């Protein structure tokens, strides 16, 4: 009635086109999820998208700058608060340096390898993607600033996640609360080792593979155990919030609350990668089964 008559239209019909695009996107999805393919196409689109992303970030930045002009009062408060904290931290730091020296000495005595010091770079959260199917954030540091895949991202209280995709000017962090993202942890109180696994919801995680009679209490702090060679040891990850030991299952159902959160602050730290774990020497066959547990940890 109002658009061009049917006989003017050329090309395939709408159904054929829909089939074509549906098949194409299904192919892309399979290639992306199953084979981790197509980084080049993604990179190209990200290059196009990057200026737009910066543009979208501009209002927040301007707001920060403008509100920065009006906050001198709260700044004074913050400075006094930070001074107090600095003082108390300084005391702990002095203690720490003494402890560190002692630790080095003891490790030398025991002929153990020294703990590696972890360096870090600060980055800013550029954007929290509105993807309800995954828990990710985008940082403003990319491969041009020396960021690498698999680096650990922390904030001032604990582990946030791990870098899982890299573009030249930005990188994507998969949060520890993402579904099936696991972090090997250790209880601070008694050194019990286990894994904390995300279930895809904000602010809640699961501690898996602990026997129903394991010595665990709510409020226990979990820190990274460092046996995976990805997460440096001793970083706070979560606190235990609820324990249900059901006798029908062999493992207890333990829920935890992650220590860090991306909603709290915009600045985060990217930790430098740990040196690779030395190759394991050849072992006699009967010992292999015992050690199998170690190899499966961490997100690749």
């Amino acid at each position: 009635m109002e658009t061009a008559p049917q006989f003017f239209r050329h090309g395939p019909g709408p159904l054929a086109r829909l089939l074509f695009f549906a098949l194409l996107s299904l192919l892309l999805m399979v290639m992306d999820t199953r084979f981790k393919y197509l980084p080049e196409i993604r990179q190209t689109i990200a290059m196009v998208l990057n200026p737009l992303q910066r543009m979208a970030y501009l209002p927040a930045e301007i707001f920060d700058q403008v509100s920065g002009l009006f906050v001198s009062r709260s700044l004074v408060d913050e400075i006094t608060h930070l001074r107090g904290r600095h003082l108390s931290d300084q005391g702990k730091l002095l203690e720490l340096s003494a402890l560190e020296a002692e630790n080095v000495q003891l490790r030398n005595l025991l002929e153990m390898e020294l703990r590696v010091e972890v360096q870090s770079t600060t980055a800013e959260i550029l954007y929290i993607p509105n993807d309800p199917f995954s828990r990710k954030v985008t940082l403003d540091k990319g491969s041009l600033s020396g960021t690498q895949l698999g680096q650990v991202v922390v904030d001032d209280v604990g582990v946030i996640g791990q870098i899982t995709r890299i573009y030249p000017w930005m990188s994507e962090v998969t949060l520890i609360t993402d579904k099936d993202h696991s972090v090997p942890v250790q209880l601070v109180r008694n050194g019990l080792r286990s894994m904390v696994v995300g279930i895809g919801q904000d602010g809640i995680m699961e501690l898996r593979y602990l026997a129903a009679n394991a010595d665990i209490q709510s409020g226990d702090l979990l820190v990274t155990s460092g046996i995976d060679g990805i997460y440096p040891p001793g970083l706070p990850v979560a606190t235990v919030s609820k324990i249900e030991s059901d006798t029908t299952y062999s493992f207890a159902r333990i829920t935890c609350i992650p220590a860090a959160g991306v909603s709290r602050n915009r600045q985060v730290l990217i930790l430098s990668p740990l040196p690779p774990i030395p190759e394991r020497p050849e072992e006699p066959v009967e010992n292999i089964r015992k050690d199998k547990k170690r190899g499966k940890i961490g997100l690749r």
Partner: protein
Amino acid sequence: MAFVDSSKHESLSNVGNRFIVLSLIVALVLNLLPLQGIALSLRPDCVALLVLYWSINQPQRVGMGASFIMGLMMDVGDASMFGQHALSYSVMSFIALLMHRRLRIFSIYKQIPQVTLLLLSAQLVMLLTGILINANLPEWDFLLASVSGALLWPLLPTLVRIPQRRRPDSNVL
């Protein structure tokens, strides 16, 4: 488009391709705004909204191909699976293409329920693909974006026509 004679669509019939592209870019920027919390779940998918608007009002220019490409952009921007948004936008554009003649009969306010369904269909496709790859299941407020998007729908023709009204004025002056 020479056969268009109804005055209702006249102002849209001379829309330039450049203008459509510009509007889609603005929608992309709006979608990439760094929001958090309730604002994030209430924020409509502006790209979906504009793709829908153009495939209803300019089906000759914006079809499944354009929707697919915009979907790929959103996939990268939202860090989701590559092809997820692309598939959902193409399906939505397909349905819009099938019923665009019927939709344009209705007044803009009566289009709201149908637009809600169209936007929901796009989200349903995303949900299905999410289930397929065993991703997190989103919470119910995921669907609020469609509702808020549909409520914005009546504003869209005015917003889209703002730059066009200015153009003849500048020619006169």
